[in-house]
């Protein structure tokens, strides 16, 4: 049964990724760029889903991880003249350390206290970027366009911000995240994370050290968020405090809940729908948040477990 579910889900996800691959040849420039952005942000949401969807821990400070990866990569390129790959690895390593340290402190708390601690860490990180503005360029942020090297493929040079490079790198990132998510969810560790989400004390009673598993989920989620942030810096050649603000912590919660918390593919749908919802409605009215809010309420009524969560409950039982 599990093997069958794994095959079905890989086929389903493979189909969606293939569709995304083909779309790049069809989409007009604007949507081409939008879908690239959606894929990077969806990767961030997939990473967030490890924590919220599978382990049941809600963080209000995840922008810290995304921004940590983004700033580590960006500042690494700016000051240390790192290559793109070096910057990506630097961003990943920096976020790994940050999320490990953060987890060691924050996981001493639970429930609402955990939520507040994550919020405070997130805000502290954001304010630190502003405070050290001589080094981080504060609220203005900075562009990497003149500092980032070029990608060489078959002796031909490309900018990382080249639309095709951007699109395909974003697709590779998303593919890797979906594959890793699926494999983890079908592994014993995935089952233990779900068990913790369902009931932490029950899992502990069975003989599992839930603290270590929660730490694993948090470090994985944080590091993957950081890699998504670093990739965003490389592909969009800009680093700024917007990505460390509180709304960038709330966004992945909405994307995940809308798409289906605890489903591997849900965050992709949630991110895509939210992105275009905001994009379209903000083109019609400046009060777009009111309309987006109303639409979200309706969607939650129709899909109480998120879009993919509801589909899984009714039809797609095999969906991880």
């Amino acid at each position, binding site marked *: 049964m599990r093997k069958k579910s794994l095959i079905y889900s890989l086929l389903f996800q493979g189909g969606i990724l293939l569709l995304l691959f083909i779309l790049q040849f069809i989409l007009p420039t604007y949507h081409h760029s939008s879908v690239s952005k959606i894929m990077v942000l969806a990767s961030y949401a997939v990473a967030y889903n490890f924590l919220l969807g599978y382990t049941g821990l809600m963080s209000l400070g995840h922008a810290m991880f995304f921004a940590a990866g983004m700033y580590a990569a960006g500042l690494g390129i700016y000051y240390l003249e790192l290559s793109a790959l070096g910057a990506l690895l630097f961003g990943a390593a920096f976020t790994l350390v940050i999320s490990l340290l953060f987890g060691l402190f924050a996981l001493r708390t639970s429930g609402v206290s955990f939520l507040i601690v994550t919020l405070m860490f997130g805000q502290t990180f954001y304010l630190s970027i502003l405070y050290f503005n001589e080094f981080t360029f504060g609220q203005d942020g900075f562009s990497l366009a003149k500092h980032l090297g070029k990608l060489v493929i078959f002796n031909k040079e490309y900018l990382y911000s080249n639309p095709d490079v951007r699109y395909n790198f974003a697709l590779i990132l998303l593919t890797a995240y979906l594959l890793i998510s699926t494999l983890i969810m079908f592994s014993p560790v995935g089952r233990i994370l779900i*068990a913790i989400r369902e009931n932490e004390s029950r*899992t*502990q009673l069975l*003989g599992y050290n*839930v603290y270590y598993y929660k730490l694993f989920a948090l470090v994985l989620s944080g590091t993957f968020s950081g890699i998504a942030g670093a990739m965003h810096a490389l592909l969009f050649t800009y680093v700024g405090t917007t990505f460390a603000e509180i709304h960038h912590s709330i966004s992945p919660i909405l994307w995940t809940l809308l798409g289906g918390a605890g489903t591997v593919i849900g965050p992709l749908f949630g991110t895509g729908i939210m992105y275009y919802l905001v994009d379209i409605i903000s083109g019609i009215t400046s009060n777009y948040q009111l309309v987006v809010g109303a639409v979200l309420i309706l969607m939650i009524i129709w899909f109480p477990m998120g879009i993919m969560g509801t589909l899984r409950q009714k039809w797609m039982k095999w969906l991880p």
Partner: protein
Amino acid sequence: MLKIDKISSRYAQVQVLKDVSLEVREGEVLGLLGRNGAGKSTLLKSIMGLVEVNAGSISMDDVILSELQAHQIPKNGIGYVPQGRRLFSELTVEENLKMGLLVRDSSKDVLEWALSLFPVLKTRMSQKSGTLSGGEQQMVATARALCIQPKFLLMDEPSEGLMPSMIETIFETIEKLKNENVGVLLVEQKIEGTLRVSDRIVFMENGFMREESDPQALAENPEPLAKYVGVKAHAS
């Protein structure tokens, strides 16, 4: 041997267990009887490290369980079937059982053994446990606890809310476990079944261990049953 030596336990500032001592041997069923609030479930939770033990000690062979963290206790061979089953409803039967197997890296033979006690579960392996009947959920909870290969199994009212035929299955399983040399500490409200499967009976009242007896003695003199459980019927 599972040895509880003069333990006192409390929830926050409320002292629930007072100076309780008892022993359970391997291959023995010890029935724990008493009215609601007597401290029976608290005793099981104290053994499992869920309730703070503020005096005395709990040990199994050479291991002092009361000095361990809750998650380390099952790894030492203590299985627990909590009241109300407490399955992971989003996981399938198979996944629930494998959660038990993983704790001590038990082999598939252990799973087969656990399933041999509840053959009906073999047909339910891919079903989400939250969709099972109460009796089937109880079987999964018991089988999951057995998947950690326990030397001692703590069972908290396993017959609660089950239909008579299912209750009989549970008691039959307890008897089989005895033959497999698993020690069982059984908290139950079904007196007759408890007396049938138990080797010894301990009565608790207001957090104290009041009296120890055995089913034969209680058959001849059921007075403790009336006194501590409020049951007047003779043991069969």
